[in-house]
């Protein structure tokens, strides 16, 4: 378990007879942005609680930063920042006062606190709002303050539960950009639990897909799409009137075509590049064939995700 910042082995959590996390084997490497995906009730939040020592596993092993969260939760929490889905702050206190309280709880020397607060607030772009009551903050500002709050302790690992939930696209992108920069500059490992796959796709190096307490898929997006769609980046779908097999054979000769399959009146072509021009030339150059539709699909995390759940 030593090479990973987080490692679980047959981790199981039961509430009564209900199995919420089922024999989970998860390894997250250092300095990675790891996306933990899955529908509600998949067990993502329970895994996070176990990582922080806020709930005990029923069986199995878990190691975070080399420590056992059940036995040494404080050591883990000293170097782990956690931003819950709905982050709360003391609204009658200013942004700086809230951060100061967090800093004191983390035993940061009092002399260092003011400069640390300024540094963290400038990372999230809230330096001008330092002395404003949090009660006057928008949701996006609170979320950014939440990032500053987790950074105050110089974390090695940060866990975000739905960090962009309920935010508009622009603010969500700013937050993701901040996360990506922190990962790049400070080598902080991030675990992001989210439903917003298009946003996660932008920054995650690796994703784990959870369903019913099990990890049903893991890897980067191209690895996952390879598992699902044979490793092709694009899927071109062509609908024609005429001899489908005859056209399919001709398409196979195009350089770059990796996979061709047919149905009654459609041809599915797997490729790594956009070959629509070449394909249309072949179709229009073949006698008795009329092209009725041509679509190209770029595999996204959402396709992978939806396909997993279609299979499950």
């Amino acid at each position, binding site marked *: 378990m030593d090479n990973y910042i987080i490692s679980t082995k047959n981790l199981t959590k039961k509430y009564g007879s209900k199995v919420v996390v089922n024999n989970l084997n998860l390894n997250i490497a250092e300095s990675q942005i790891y996306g933990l995906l899955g529908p509600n009730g998949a067990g993502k939040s329970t895994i996070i609680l176990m990582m922080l020592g*806020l709930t005990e596993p029923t069986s199995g092993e878990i190691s975070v930063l080399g420590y056992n969260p059940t036995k040494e939760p*404080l050591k883990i929490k000293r170097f*782990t920042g956690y931003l*819950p889905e709905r*982050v*709360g702050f*003391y609204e009658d206190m200013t942004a700086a006062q809230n951060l100061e309280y*967090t800093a004191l*709880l983390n*035993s940061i020397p009092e002399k260092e606190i003011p400069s640390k607060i300024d540094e963290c607030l400038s990372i999230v772009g809230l330096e001008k709002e330092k002395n404003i009551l949090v009660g006057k903050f928008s949701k996006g500002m609170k979320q950014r303050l939440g990032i500053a709050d987790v950074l105050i302790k110089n974390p090695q690992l940060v866990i975000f539960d739905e960090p962009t939930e309920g935010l508009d696209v622009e603010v969500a992108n700013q937050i993701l950009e901040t996360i990506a920069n922190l990962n790049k500059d400070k080598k902080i490992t991030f675990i992001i639990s989210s439903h917003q796959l298009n946003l996660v796709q932008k920054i995650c190096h690796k994703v784990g897909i959870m369903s019913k307490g099990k990890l049903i898929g893991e890897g980067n997006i191209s690895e996952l799409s390879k598992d699902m769609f044979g490793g092709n980046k694009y899927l071109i779908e062509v609908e024609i009137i005429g001899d489908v097999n005859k056209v399919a054979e001709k398409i196979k000769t195009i350089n770059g075509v990796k996979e061709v399959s047919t149905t009654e009146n459609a041809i599915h072509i797997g490729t790594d590049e956009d070959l629509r021009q070449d394909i249309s030339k072949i179709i229009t150059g073949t006698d008795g064939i009329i092209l009725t539709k041509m679509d190209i699909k770029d595999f996204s995390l959402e396709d992978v995700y939806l396909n997993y759940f279609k299979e499950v």
Partner: protein
Amino acid sequence: MKSVLTIYRKELADYFSSKKFLILLGLVYLTGLTSIYVSLQNIRAAAQSSTDAFVFLKLYTTAGDVLPSFLYFLSFFIPIIGIVFGFDAINSERNSKNLSRLLSQPIYRDSIINGKFLAGITTMSIIIGSIILIIAGIGLRIIGVPPSSEEILRIIIFIFICVCYGTFWMALSMLFSVIMDKTATSILTSIAIWIFFFFFVQIIANAVSNAIAPITDNATLATQIKNFNIDLAIKRISPAYLFTESITILLIPSGSQLFLRAVTTADISKMLLNPLSLGQSLIQVWPQTVAIIALAIICFAISYIVFIKQEIRST
């Protein structure tokens, strides 16, 4: 320990700057000063001629024609103060989504409840202690009789019992704040229990004792004693009654001990009612005080255990 202190300081600052603190302080000071005005009207003349060794304590125990004594006000207000400082201790943190953020910091979970509990006790002690001392100061200035050392000791013990009693109510309301999600539910439950103990236990005690041993015109002495004992036993399930008993005996050294047992008018006429010494008064109030402290500890222990075992989620 450092984290308890950090939380304690923050909670203390919150209490002192909160509106509820200012309102409670104003209310307690207002009623305290009203009651001392009434008591001063009645004891000023008595103080100059009285041979009573405990004139100073009368500041707290003398009632007017219309207004009750400071003791009565205090027995009424202390539960309210305790409830106000405890009812939203945990569930307000949970509802404001601060609890999961707090628990993700490198602190033991019990630091949160301990810090809040200690801050509540401190704030209560300041409110209760300050009004009792203000009354003593005003009394000293106006009646011109300084308290004896025994009176000072009695006042200090009186403050201690008041704080213990307030701590019980705070621990009880804190328990509800741990087990109930909504602050409105926890405060209403706490107030319902206070009303039950403050008003209904006395009514129930009266009804039960009269049903078991009715006092009629020709009731025997044994029946009267039985009635008294049943009434007293039922009343003593109420912390409010235990508190009233203990502070009455402590602050009225002459004759108040008679409330503790069945005594006939004939017996009283044969008695020489010398005031109890401090030691004797303490022996009399010791069981009541221990019961109040034990109740506070039990309530806090339950809330502590429940809170430690609770799973805190952000959603």
